C-alpha cells in the first residue's frame, strides 16, 4: 500500500479516508508499530509501579534497620562494660521479623592500637552493629565502649 508523504495531520486524514472508502485495513507494519507503542506504554507503567514499590520497600527497610541499630547501640550504652563479651555478651534487641541484627566487638590494643578481633581487655571496645534483611546488609554502625 502506498501512502503519500504527509505530516501527522495528513497521515490521519489519509487513514480516515481509507477507512471510509474501502476496507483494506491496516498493514502489518502499522499493526506492529501500534503494538510496539502500546507495549512501550504498558511497560513504562509497569516499570514505574515496580520502581515505586522497590523504593518504598527500601525506605521501610532503612527506617526499621535504623531503629533496630539505634536500639541495639542504646542497649549496649545502657549496659556496664563487659570485659569478656564472648562469655557475658551484651544484650540484644528483640528480633523483628524479616531483619537480623548482629553485634561485633573488637578490642583496643593499648597504648596505640589497633583494634583487634582477639579478646583482650585494655578498657576500650569498638562495637559494630549490622542490620540485614533477606536481601543483604542494610546498614552498619559503630560505637566505642569505654570501661569507666
Amino acid at each position, binding site marked *: 500500500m502506498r501512502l503519500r508523504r504527509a505530516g501527522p495531520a495528513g497521515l490521519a486524514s489519509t487513514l480516515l479516508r481509507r477507512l471510509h472508502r474501502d*476496507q483494506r485495513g491496516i498493514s502489518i507494519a502499522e499493526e506492529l508499530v501500534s503494538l510496539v507503542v502500546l507495549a512501550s506504554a*504498558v511497560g513504562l*507503567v*509497569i516499570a*514505574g*509501579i515496580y520502581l*515505586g*514499590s522497590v*523504593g*518504598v520497600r527500601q*525506605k*521501610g527497610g532503612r*527506617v*526499621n534497620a*535504623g*531503629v533496630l541499630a*539505634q*536500639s*541495639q547501640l*542504646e*542497649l549496649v*550504652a*545502657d549496659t556496664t562494660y563487659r570485659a569478656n563479651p564472648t562469655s557475658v555478651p551484651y544484650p540484644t*534487641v*528483640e528480633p*523483628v521479623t524479616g531483619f537480623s541484627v548482629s553485634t561485633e566487638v573488637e578490642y583496643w590494643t593499648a597504648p596505640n592500637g589497633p583494634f583487634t578481633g582477639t579478646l583482650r581487655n585494655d578498657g576500650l571496645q569498638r562495637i559494630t552493629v549490622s542490620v540485614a534483611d533477606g536481601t543483604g546488609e542494610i546498614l552498619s554502625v559503630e560505637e566505642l565502649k569505654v570501661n569507666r
Partner: protein
Amino acid sequence: MKRGEDGFTIPEMLIGALLATAAATLIATAIYQFSVASRDGRNRLTALGDLQNASLWIGRDTSEAQSFASGSGSVYGTLSTSDANLEYRYSYSSADTSLVREVLVGGSPTNTTRVARHIAGQGDVAFSQSGTLLTVTITSTSGSIDESATLSASMRVR
C-alpha cells in the same frame, strides 16, 4: 453497506469482542493496580516518616535525660535532664492524632513539636522504663497501612 463488502462473520465478531474485552480488562487492572500501589506506597512512606521522626526526637531527648516520670491522662511521661529547669514532655493529642513533644522550661511549655502525626489512638504509643532504659513502641497509621517500631533509648546522664 456497499456491494462486495461482506462485513464480519459472527466468529470474527466474537473473536474481536473477546480480544477487546481482554485488552480492556488488562488496562483497567493496570490502572487499578497503579492507583492502589501508589496510594499504599504513599501511606507507607507517611507512616515510616512518622516512625523515623519520632525515633530521632525520642533518642535525642533520652540521651540528654536523667530520669523519666510516667504521666497521666493524655501525657505519656516527662524526661528530666540534669538542668532542673529543662524537661521534655511527651503526650497524645487526640485533636490532631499526634504524638506531641513539649520542651518545658521551669514547668511551662516553650516549644511544641508534633513528632508523629498519624497516631490513631493514644494506645498506639507506649513508654516503658526499666532502670535507665526507656522503651517506646509506636504504631503509625496512614490510610489502611500501619507501621510499628520499638525503640530503646538509654538515659545517659547519671
